[in-house]
């Protein structure tokens, strides 16, 4: 006889209840350790975060190894960050015990503290490490000298500069003025008062204009219209519009409205081709080009450059637009809006970074490369991760890119360029560029724009400059862009030839 009579079934059921209880416990553990693992580890009250705040943070260095952010003294066991170059603030952001983190300090917080949150899968290698944290240094592609030069040239005017290496997407400078001093935000003694000052400043110093400022582009947008026209076949380099010379004088009548070239335009009697239209910045020529291209194609080619969505970068970016999106004509209200948008007015809004990508793509033979700020990440324990250029895709054919490039060279070096983008010319170097004067509401001075790159045949730097309400492009942004390209090519670039 096996077992006491009548006991077995009771045992079985109690065993079943035990199994159910354990199954619930297992499910609870799974929930906490898989689903909730991330939020729990990110909770600021988690001692993990406390350890991270006290751990020595990795440094941030510029392209030549100049220390941009490192650790200063410790106050009450909490380390303070030291920022020696305030002009780098739009890139580095800050670490504040009171206000949290921003910029790359936020994006790369995990690597900088080295207290990696274990993913649900854990980190097998980490199990054989002794230290709880392995802080890493960020090596940027940015050159502090170019950054500081740009900030200094912008001075106390509101504006932004983006400089990028076209073939790799490495960002060389990313400037926004007015700036702020991250040091004062990092120091708990000054942080609250300083933040209040920044908040009261009508210039919004905490706004990174380079990545998040959305501006009317004016004539620099003609590069996008040109690319779309060439890609669609609607225009060629020798395309002319027969009515354009007359309209340039009297205005281009469209649906009861009149589109006019800027009064300063050089009045030529023969119909302009693409290069000449870009050189003298003819609104009417590009209005015709945009109408010939069509709204759908213009939008599609613009989206290849990145318009319509936030650009992927290690910093938060705003998306650029061609129109408000509520009109019947692919978002444009009518042909008039399309015509106006074709030369960068109407509802076109773009970030300086977006225009930098347009310049870089043209400079790079039509291939767009993902913009990056960090060259490599090197941890104390010797882990290295190097950023390699990521090709986003071909925006236009190499031939069309060359056509636009040549037009941009003519815009800087042509006969009539002096009134437009001519001031950007780097002596001894074939320079490509386009000026812009973005018309705003009546009574407001226009934004001054420049987009360009050099050397035209083997571009090593593409630059975008915008100075808010600073008048025509040629008066402010164009020479500024020229100086930056010149400084880079002749003084700062690793193989510069002074």
């Amino acid at each position, binding site marked *: *006889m*096996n*077992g*006491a009579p*009548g*006991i*077995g*079934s*009771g*045992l*079985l*059921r*109690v*065993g079943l*209840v*035990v*199994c159910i*209880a*354990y199954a*619930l*416990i*297992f499910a*609870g*553990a*799974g929930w*906490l*350790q*898989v689903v*909730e*693992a*991330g*939020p*729990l*580890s990110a*909770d600021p*009250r*988690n*001692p*993990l975060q*406390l*350890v991270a705040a006290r751990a020595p943070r990795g440094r941030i260095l510029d392209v030549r190894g100049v220390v941009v952010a490192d650790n200063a003294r410790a106050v009450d*066991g909490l380390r303070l960050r030291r920022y020696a170059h305030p002009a780098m603030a739009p890139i580095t952001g800050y670490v504040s015990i009171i206000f949290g983190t921003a910029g790359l300090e936020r994006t790369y917080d995990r690597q900088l503290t080295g207290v990696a*949150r*274990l*993913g*649900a*899968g*854990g*980190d*097998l290698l*980490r*199990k*054989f*490490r*002794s*230290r*709880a944290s392995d802080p890493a240094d960020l090596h940027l592609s940015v050159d502090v000298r170019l950054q500081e030069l740009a900030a200094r040239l912008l001075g106390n005017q509101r504006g932004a500069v983006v400089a990028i290496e076209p073939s790799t997407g490495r960002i060389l400078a990313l400037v926004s003025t007015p700036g702020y001093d991250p040091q004062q935000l990092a120091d708990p003694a000054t942080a609250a008062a300083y933040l209040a000052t920044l908040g009261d400043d009508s210039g919004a110093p905490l706004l990174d204009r380079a990545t998040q400022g959305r501006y009317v582009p004016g004539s620099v947008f003609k590069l996008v219209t040109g690319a779309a026209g060439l890609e669609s076949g609607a225009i060629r380099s020798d395309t002319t519009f027969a009515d354009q010379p007359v309209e340039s004088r009297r205005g281009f009548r469209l649906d009861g409205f009149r589109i006019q070239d800027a009064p300063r335009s050089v009045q030529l009697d023969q119909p302009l081709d693409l290069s000449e239209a870009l050189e003298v910045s003819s609104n009417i020529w590009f209005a015709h080009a945009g109408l010939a291209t069509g709204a759908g194609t213009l939008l599609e080619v613009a989206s290849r450059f990145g318009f319509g969505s936030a650009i992927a970068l290690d910093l938060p970016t705003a998306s650029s637009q061609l129109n408000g999106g509520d009109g019947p004509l692919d978002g444009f209200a009518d042909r008039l809006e399309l015509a106006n948008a074709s030369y960068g007015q109407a509802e076109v809004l773009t970030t300086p970074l977006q225009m930098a990508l347009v310049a870089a793509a043209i400079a790079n033979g039509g291939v767009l490369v993902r913009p990056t700020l960090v060259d490599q990440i090197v941890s104390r324990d010797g882990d290295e991760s190097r950023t390699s250029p990521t090709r986003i895709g071909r925006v236009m054919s190499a031939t069309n890119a060359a056509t636009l490039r040549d037009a941009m060279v003519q815009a800087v070096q042509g006969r009539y360029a002096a009134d437009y983008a001519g001031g950007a010319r780097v002596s001894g170097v074939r320079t490509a560029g386009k000026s812009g004067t973005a018309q705003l509401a009546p009574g407001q001075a226009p934004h001054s724009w420049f987009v360009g790159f050099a050397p035209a045949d083997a571009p090593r730097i593409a630059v975008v400059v915008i100075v808010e309400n600073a008048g025509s492009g040629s008066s402010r942004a164009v020479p500024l862009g020229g100086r930056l390209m010149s400084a880079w090519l002749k003084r700062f670039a690793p193989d510069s030839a002074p």
Partner: protein
Amino acid sequence: MRLARPRLRMRPRTRDRELRLLTVVALAMGAGWVSLSSTRSGGLSIGDPVPVVCWLLGMLGVHVAFVISGRDLDQVLLPVVGILGGISLLFMERLPQGLVVQRFGDRTLMLGDLQLLWLLLGLGLLGVTAISVRSVRWLREYRYTWAALGIGLLAAVFLLGDEVNGARLSMHIGPFSGQPSELLKVILVVFLAAYLADNRPMLARSSMRLGIIRLPPLAYLLPMLATWGVALALVIIQKDLGAALLLFSVFLALLYIATRRGSYVVVGLVLFFVGAAVLYGVLGHVRARVDIWLDPWADPLGAGYQVIRALYAFGRGGILGTGLGAGLPTVDGVAAIPLIHTDFVFAAVGEELGLLGALAVGTCYLILAERGMRIAARAPDEFQALLAAGLTLVIVLQAALIMAANLRLVPLTGVTLPLISYGGSSILTNALVVGSLLALSDRTAVRGVPAPTVRIARSAVA
């Protein structure tokens, strides 16, 4: 007449399955030790392997003793104890040693060494119990003595106990201190098993009717009320929610096994909820426990601190864990989770061994449950069946209670994680329980022994 038959028949019996499983245990412990030492030293290292070698040699010693004794004992329980005790040893060596410090003359022992000592003592107790206990008739015969002893222990704690962490659990007698409620659980299980076995044949059929409610017959109702009373007393006098909950749930399970009457369980649960509701209203410490459970974030740096810190630990662990020694047991030299070496050791396991480690520990208790229930099912009489089931449930339900509390699935009731948490009383008691299960598993020893009758019991007393 064959009077010359030796009392102890020493015919060695090989135990291949146990040896194979112990090999696995040894490999796992070795790997754990190397992982911990390597993390500490920053390179591949075996550190000071004495503790883990001691533990493995202890296992081997008990195994050899089992072989020599020739008893047909269960071959899975010892390896399960090996792995749970081994995990305990790894974590007690790994946690801040200053959590427990005891002086013996001019020698100072700290957390890891003390736990090794307790584990080895427990292992010895387990082995001796498993080999030497050949009949449990005496346990049944002295059932009322056990009941009296249990109540006596309760009274002693009430009169002599010290209040620690808001609960009156420990007692000092001379240089020794212990937590009698650990032993109390076992004593009461023995009593309940004997009582239910005695009354089962008579009363399995009938039941009282009180209006529309079917009540268990008085013979069941009385001990049910008595157990309920003891549980309430535990909560009120000792503030020991865990022991009370455990005792009552083991009792209900045994009652169900003995009678297979779901209605009794319902009555028991009603009693439980009435008691719980009243205690929640009356006793501040019960209310506090429940409130913390419902919303620990209401007071994250005070009352909810411990529970929240445990949640963080589980979160940090993820699926694979941080690895032994790589978690965050201390922040600024203070334990990240108060009582991490006792009540919250499961959170430490969850952090450093991850979800997989936590599930492995849970599975060990489930294996223990399966073996215990199997031993119960094969027991030759009701008493032994109920005793085996009760002893199994004491470990398995207690583990479930504290694991669920660590995961914030139930309120924290402050019991140890059997065979893993630090503590002499807990380790020794649970070793005794597993030793008893092993003894009960030997069917060769008890085959043919008739169920004791009341007459035998009386003659034994007389």
